[in-house]
């Protein structure tokens, strides 16, 4: 029925477009000078007919289930009326099961309510369909007579498009704000139970809280410093790999490579960015980590089977394209006139790159690095698989460490009460991460913007 509704909407759009265009075309054939092209009249008519239909379904979606449930519950006799929310949910499950024929109704009254449920559903869908068609018809009969020589269909349609664009960007912005606030509120709840300075500056991370009150030694300690150190350690290792490799690759690509090689190698490098991180993760855990351990043992070093080094190296490889692709873009954006100026002074290609191009592109390169860092800090899978879970406070890259993201994942997977300090601490960690990457991104974007102004 709902699918039917959307098919109908599409049909309405197509036919309104056809009618609108034909109508204005006829005016044009009759020799009238139209303000807007006929297709704009068509688009305008299609838009004003479909918008009410879409609004109707948007309003109906949250309202319909309430109406249906209310009707079903109302059909129950006094004795079976649910008293609490929990009871209501249980009763509704029975009714839905009965209505859909998935289970025998426990009583004839419930079966009756099930029938009421189905009937209410049919009603609500019919109402939607009728309302939609009426709305479309109303809009159509309002819009059709407006088609005339002076009607500014193009301006109207463009205004409608503008609203569509605004709505889409509002979705993006509001989602971000929504996530931020929900994480922030959970974080505040966590800080009501656990002091924030202990969280930010505590050195001990062992989030096991007591399940039974008589358990001992399980009060939970949420000092996040080991996680911050672990995250930074892996990030630094990753950037030590991705920074030079990515930058030099970018220099080669933009300054030395032939266009043929470039057109081949650049997409290949960008494929690296498309590899799912879990693939990198098992590569890190199954290939790189054992290799590092064997090499370490051959050198007489003790290496944990899961190490920050393995995770960092693989993550470095993963973020190479982030560094190289963006750096390549900013290096290519350095105006040719600066290169010419430098060559004309008698500098070699290497001198030109070192003394003119890189300094000119530096802000952009810095922001490429920052975006890569925020990617590294937010990465989870590789670290889960290759760096371990132990909250060791260590700067030794050969030991197992854990990161903020890994702990969030560990805290929230499995059966958990969602209001214990343990699960709430995940939100606090998430908030710190969010804040950190947001700051990095904002700084990076500002630098890029400033840099753009310099040459435009």
């Amino acid at each position, binding site marked *: 029925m709902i699918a039917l509704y959307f098919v109908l909407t599409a049909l309405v759009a197509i036919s309104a477009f056809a009618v609108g265009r034909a109508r204005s075309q006829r005016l044009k054939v009759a020799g009238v000078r139209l303000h807007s092209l006929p297709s704009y009249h068509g688009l305008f008519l299609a838009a004003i007919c479909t918008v009410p239909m879409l609004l109707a379904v948007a309003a109906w979606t949250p309202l319909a289930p309430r109406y249906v449930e209310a009707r079903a519950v109302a059909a129950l006799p006094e004795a079976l009326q649910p008293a609490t929310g929990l009871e209501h949910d249980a009763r509704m499950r029975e009714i839905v099961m009965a209505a859909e024929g998935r289970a025998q109704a426990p009583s004839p009254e419930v079966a009756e309510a099930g029938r009421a449920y189905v009937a209410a559903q049919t009603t609500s869908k019919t109402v939607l369909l009728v309302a939609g068609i009426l709305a479309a018809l109303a809009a159509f009969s309002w819009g059709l007579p407006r088609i005339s020589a002076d009607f500014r269909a193009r301006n109207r349609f463009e205004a409608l498009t503008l609203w569509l664009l605004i709505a889409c960007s509002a979705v993006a912005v509001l989602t971000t704000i929504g996530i931020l606030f929900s994480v922030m509120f959970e974080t505040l709840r966590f800080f009501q139970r656990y002091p924030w300075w202990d969280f930010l500056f505590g050195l001990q991370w062992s989030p096991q809280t007591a399940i039974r009150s008589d358990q001992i030694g399980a009060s939970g300690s949420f000092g996040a410093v080991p996680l911050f150190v672990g995250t930074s350690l892996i990030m630094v290792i990753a950037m030590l790999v991705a920074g030079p490799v990515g930058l030099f690759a970018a220099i080669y690509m933009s300054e030395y490579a032939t266009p043929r090689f470039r057109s081949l190698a650049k997409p290949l490098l960008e494929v690296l960015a498309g590899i799912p991180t879990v693939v990198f993760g098992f590569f890190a855990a199954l290939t790189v980590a054992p290799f590092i351990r064997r090499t370490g043992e051959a050198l007489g070093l003790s290496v944990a089977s899961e190490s920050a080094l393995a995770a960092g190296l693989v993550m470095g490889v993963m973020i190479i394209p982030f560094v190289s692709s963006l750096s390549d873009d900013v290096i290519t954006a350095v*105006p040719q*006139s*600066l*290169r*010419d*100026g*430098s*060559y*004309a*002074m*008698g*500098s*070699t290609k290497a*001198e030109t790159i070192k*003394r*003119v191009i890189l*300094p*000119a592109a530096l802000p952009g390169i810095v922001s490429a690095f920052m975006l890569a860092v925020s990617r590294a800090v937010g990465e989870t899978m590789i670290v889960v698989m290759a760096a371990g879970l132990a909250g060791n406070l260590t700067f030794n890259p050969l030991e197992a460490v854990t990161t903020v993201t890994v702990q969030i994942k560990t805290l929230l997977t499995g059966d958990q009460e969602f209001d214990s300090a343990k699960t709430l601490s995940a939100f606090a960690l998430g908030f710190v991460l969010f804040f950190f990457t947001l700051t990095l991104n904002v700084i990076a974007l500002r630098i890029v913007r400033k840099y753009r102004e*310099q040459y435009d």
Partner: protein
Amino acid sequence: MTDDRETSHNQGPTTVNRMADLNMPLTSAAGLFTANAPKVTARDVTVHYGDKQALFGVSIDIPEKSVTAFIGPSGCGKSTFLRCINRMNDTIPICRVAGEILIDGADIYDRRLDPVLLRARVGMVFQKPNPFPKTIYENVAYGPRIHGTTASRQELDGVVETSLRKAGLWDEVKDRLDQPGTGLSGGQQQRLCIARAIAVGPEVILMDEPCSALDPIATARIEELIFELAANFTIVIVTHSMQQAARVSQQTAFFHLGHLVEYGATEQIFTAPSDKRTQDYITGRFG
């Protein structure tokens, strides 16, 4: 670098022989260059961009310590020929140059000559001012630094000051040498680029429409500067403006469709051109 320069001077006598060998007729009056000896000599220079020929057998003698202007309609190959003189065309992969260009009698397309060293002797100023995104000081110090021509910081300071003075910019920027060169006005930027070129101590300065991005006042300053610089440098300037060519140059070369149509004393070109095409161009019939 010094070695190279010496070699080129040592070849002085050979030059005469070679010129005699070549013995090509120039396009215009031969008795023109009585004042100065030729600094740059081109014989039968042909340039292709890929399959497209941009220059057809250009031969010219450019006298030293004077201003030579190249005029002609857009796309006629003025810039292309200018860029042959410091081998900037080498930086364009599809560009092929044939023929002979001598500076002080030495072939600049000699295999053994490093174009990097050539460009220290032949400076260039571009159409759009292109200061590096560095400080004013660093812009001027760029050339001396890469060529290692100054031994100490004091010496470098000296070169920067003299270059800025010669470019007529010193008084305007002496208090803000540490500010970015990109923050100057267009005309100042172009004079900074001239100072930057002078700082390397070139013998020839090539200018490709150096005033086309500037307002009339800035243009007048640059023209004045070009006139002063001609006392010490050999200047070749491409210009779109015939008035400018008439004001600043001693010789003018008229290019058309890749050919050097006419070359002679500026006065003669503008008052009594011998070629119909030159006459049409000068009277504004096309261009």
